[in-house]
Each structure stands twice: as C-alpha cells, then as structure tokens.
C-alpha cells in the first residue's frame, strides 16, 4: 500500500513538473536551435508517459539524473546524499531531544497536577507553540553565538556537536511543547481511571506505576502527534538551515526553487525523497502502534 502511494506520488510529481509552463531553457541567451538540440538531448520531446518510464528506470538504477541549473548540472545523487546526511544528523538530534524532554515535562506536569510545577510546564508548552522555530533560532543565534560567542555563529561540520545544539534545540521546541501537552492530558485521564486506582490500591506507586500502567496507555495518542511533527521538522529545517548555514536538504530545496533558475530535477528528486520519508515515517508509526498496544494489531486482523 505504501509503495503504491509512493508510486502515485512520483507519477503526480513527475507529470506536474513536466507540464509546468516554461522549461529550464527559457533563458534569453540560448538560441532556438540550441534549445531544440538540448531538448532532444534530454529527451524532453518524447511523450510525457515515455519520459516517466525513462525516469523510473533512472530511479531504479539508483540515480536522480543531473541538475538543470544548480551546480552546473552535476549529478544530483552525491550532493543530495551529503545534504540528506547533514539534515538527518540535526533532525535526529532534535527529535530525540523533543521526545525525551517533551515526555518528561508532560509526565512531571501530570503527576503534579494543579501545582506550581504543572503551571510552569503549561507555560513552557504554550511558549513553544507560539514561537516559530526560526524565531527561536534567531534569538539563540543572536544571544549565544553573537553576544556570548559560546557556540559557532554558523554551522561548522568539523565541530558537529557544538554547532548542532542550537538548531536542534530550536527545531525541537515545537515538538517539546506539543508532546508535553498531549502527554499531560492523556496521563491525567489515565491517572483518573479505575485500573490505575486498583494498581494504587494494591500498593504500586511512583515510577513503577507510571511505567507499567500509565505510560503505555497514555502513549498511543502521543505517538499519533509525533508523526506529523517529524515531517514538520522538515519544513522548519528549511528556514533553520537557511539561517544557520547548514548544508542540508532544506537549504537545497530553497536553492532549487528560489535561486536564479528553478532546478526542475532537484525539485523532483527532493519531492520524491521527502514523500518517501513521510510515508516511511507513517509506516514505522503503524508498526509502533502494534508494539505499544497489541490490541490494535488484533482488531485490524479481525476486521
């Protein structure tokens, strides 16, 4: 099913990009004959469906073809993998940070419901929602790299951890607040349920109670919010990478669409990669549901 969706997406993206008015050669300095020759060379005169099949075989051979405007038409794949790796490192760091901190805040808030600590946690989660990641990035960069030069001002691959902390922090802010809010609400509901009261009555308390009875049941809705968050990170990363000078996929995308010439092949390749990532994340989550709550797997089998 996921593969089918991915195939459909690749098809839609490809057709969309091919029927876009204007092409990579609508540049004044190219004569009509040159454009014709170039089009012939790249196979742009064939019917769109034939081109699509060609492109699929290109993909199957593990390549994305060459760029049309960026980097003088160098092959896309090595550039893309390098950028993907950079983004991946920062992204994973921020997801880890976001989930761990978010869960902790949520749990602490739920256990101290109605006390000062709860209010404090609510405040943090509200702040996280209303401050976009790039705004917090600008602030972090201004204060902790410019005013107090503690972290490098721009991303520095040779000093990965030093320079990845700020972007990861600001990217995860939204995730922290959303996860914290959901965890808190779910935990409060579960804590009020009968089976938790029973467990308490039997003498279970503290960490063990939370781990064995509360967290498992509270986690399912939380996992549901994590999925879109992971993808949101991509969007957020686009600006963060621009601000912080990280050579990642987000920056590549900006270059491909907002640069001097739109690079159709890069947009296509990035579109496919992003969609594949998204579908992959969804797939992993479906599997995670089954692990957290075995009932879900059972019901889908029966139905």
């Amino acid at each position: 099913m996921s593969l089918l969706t991915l195939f459909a997406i690749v098809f839609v993206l490809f057709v969309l990009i091919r029927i876009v008015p204007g092409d990579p050669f609508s540049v004044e300095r190219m004569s009509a004959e040159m454009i014709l020759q170039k089009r012939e060379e790249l196979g742009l005169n064939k019917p769109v469906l034939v081109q699509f099949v060609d492109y699929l075989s290109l993909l199957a051979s593990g390549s994305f073809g060459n760029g049309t405007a960026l980097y003088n038409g160098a092959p896309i794949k090595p550039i893309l993998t390098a950028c993907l790796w950079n983004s991946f490192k920062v992204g994973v760091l921020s997801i880890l940070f976001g989930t761990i901190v978010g869960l902790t805040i949520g749990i602490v808030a739920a256990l101290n419901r109605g006390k000062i600590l709860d209010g404090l946690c609510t405040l943090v989660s509200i702040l996280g929602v209303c401050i976009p990641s790039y705004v917090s990035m600008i602030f972090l960069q201004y204060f902790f790299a410019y005013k107090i030069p503690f972290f490098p001002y721009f991303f520095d691959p040779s000093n990965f951890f030093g320079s990845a902390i700020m972007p990861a922090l600001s990217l995860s802010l939204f995730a922290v607040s959303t996860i914290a809010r959901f965890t808190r609400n779910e935990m409060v509901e579960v804590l009020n349920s009968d089976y938790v009261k029973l467990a308490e009555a039997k003498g279970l308390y503290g960490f063990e109670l939370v781990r064995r009875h509360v967290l498992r049941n509270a986690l399912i809705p939380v996992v549901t919010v994590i999925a879109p968050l992971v993808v949101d990170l991509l969007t957020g990363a686009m600006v963060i990478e621009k601000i912080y000078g990280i050579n990642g996929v987000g920056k590549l995308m900006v270059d491909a669409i907002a640069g001097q010439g739109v690079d159709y092949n890069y947009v296509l390749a990035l579109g496919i990669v992003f969609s594949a990532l998204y579908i992959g994340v969804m797939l992993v989550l479906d599997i995670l549901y089954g692990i957290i709550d075995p009932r879900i797997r059972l019901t889908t089998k029966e139905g």
Partner: protein
Amino acid sequence: MYTPQKDDFEFISGREIEIDENFSSQGYWTGVAVHFFKNKFAVTGVILVVGIMLFAIFAPPASSYEYDQIISVVDANGSEIVAKSLPPQFSGSDVQNRFADKTFIFGTDDMGRDLWTRTWHGARISLIIAFVAIFIDMLIGTSYGLISGFFGGTVDNVMQRFIEIAGSIPTLVIISILAIFMEKGIGLVIASLLITEWIGMSKIARAECLKLKEREYVLASRTLGAGSFHQIFLQILPNTIGPIITQVMFSIPVAIFTEAFLSFVGVGIVLPQCSIGSLIEAGFGNITILPYQILPPICVLAILMLGFNLIGDGLREALAPKLEDM
C-alpha cells in the same frame, strides 16, 4: 371561596428558591458561550487577537506615513535627500536605520520607511491572507468531507484514496512545485494554503458526518423525502459547525506561520509590499547591528499565534465540556 395568593405563603427557611444555574435550561450556544468566557485563557486569547486586529485595521491609516513611503529629509541647502538602500553600518540620511523614538515608534528600516506603519500593515496582510485562505479551505474541506462521509461506499472510498495520496505529499513539496508554476507574491501564499490546509478540515467534517448521518432527525427528513443536498447541508452541516470552527481557530495560526515562513524563505510577499514574514526576513538581515528592527514583527507574530491557540483551546473545551469543568 378564597383563592390562595402567592404572598400568603412563605418559605420556612426564609430564603427564595435557589434557581439551579448549572442545570437551568439554556440553549446549546449559550452554554458554549458561558463556558468559553469563564475560561480565563480563552478570554486572554480573544483580547490579544482583537487587540492586534484593531491595530492592524486602524494603525496604518492613522499613521502619518505610508507603509511603502520612503521618508525623505530636506538637508541644510534645501534639497531633498532621497534614501538609498545602504548597509546597516551606515546611516545615509537621518531617517534611515533610525532607532525607535517619538516620531518613529518602532524606528525606521534601511530604506527609511516607518516600521510602525509597516509592522501593522504587515500584520494586516498576514491576517487577510490567513482569513481568506482558511475560509475557502473551510468551504472546500467541509463540503468534501460531508459528501464523502454521507454517501459512503465507493464514493467515500475513492475520495478517501485521493486524500490519502494528496495528504502524503509533504506541504513543502507542494509549495515548491507551486513556486515553479506561479509568480511570487500573495497569490502563491494563498494557493499553497488552499491546497494543503483543507485536508484536515475534510477529515473532521467526515468524522462528524459519519456520526450524525444515522441520527433520527436525518432519518426523519429522509423519510419525508428530502434530497441528499438538503440532508447534507441543512440537516448535518449545522451540527458539525462546532468542531469545524475549532479546527479553523487552529488553522489560522498555521496559515500565519506558513505565510511568514514562505516570505522568509523568499517565495512569499514581494517588496515594497510587506507582511510579518517579510519584515522578519528584512530584520534578520541586519540583526547583529540593528536588532530593534526585528523585534516588532516577531512580537506581533508570537502574540497572534498565542492568541489563536488559546481561543482554539478554549473553544474545544467549551464545545465538549468534561465533567470536572462543570
């Protein structure tokens, strides 16, 4: 024969009958409103949003400068100095890159434009974009979801597969393809919001519709011979409004954020027009030297996001009150 009057009786305890306010009869929407305005956070949200809106409406016309007016000064010889874009280190004329003071409440930018006027004009543009886009999204999404949920079967199946594919393409990819198609500017921002935001709306409408379509009153109207259109839009739609409005309140900050993000990346609003995003982008260029330029748009953005989120939370609680809140 004597008929007893009301005055002939008195309560033994000496007090009037207590009217039970919690369970007194009140309409659905009155109940929602009462719940909503009892919630301090929600009221704060309303105040914040309405405040920003008032400023966005009245501040630009009340200001003595236009949002795109490059303020010129007359020098000692009587000739006008026209501002040119300069690096932030230099100050070409008195009114360029000027720090906030009484004349220019938020200061001026690198072209010598009044940031007070520009900030509120930008807020206005951002709000207009968000409202227009989300309103159309609401129309499209609600109709799509209701139709899909109402007819069920093959129609539903096909429509849901379409949503599945459309929803699997990340927003970013859709926006970048649109950016190839269209000119940069307001149109692009609205179009990308139109294409991406209706899906969530339609999912909620469909879920509500599935819940409601088997209710007695819908069955009654079907029995009386009402057509599908009548049932969907006159019987079911009015009862789905609550959740949809809540979703709208959560979508508006997303729209404002998306606009700010697009403008920041450079495919959004084009100069000299401005929006919150483009102002932040302009301010970011000079942040190390003139940090005051970036503060007003960022504050407006944060307040708007906060306000709409608080309103959304309040609405959600007011529409589905839990027992503990009563």
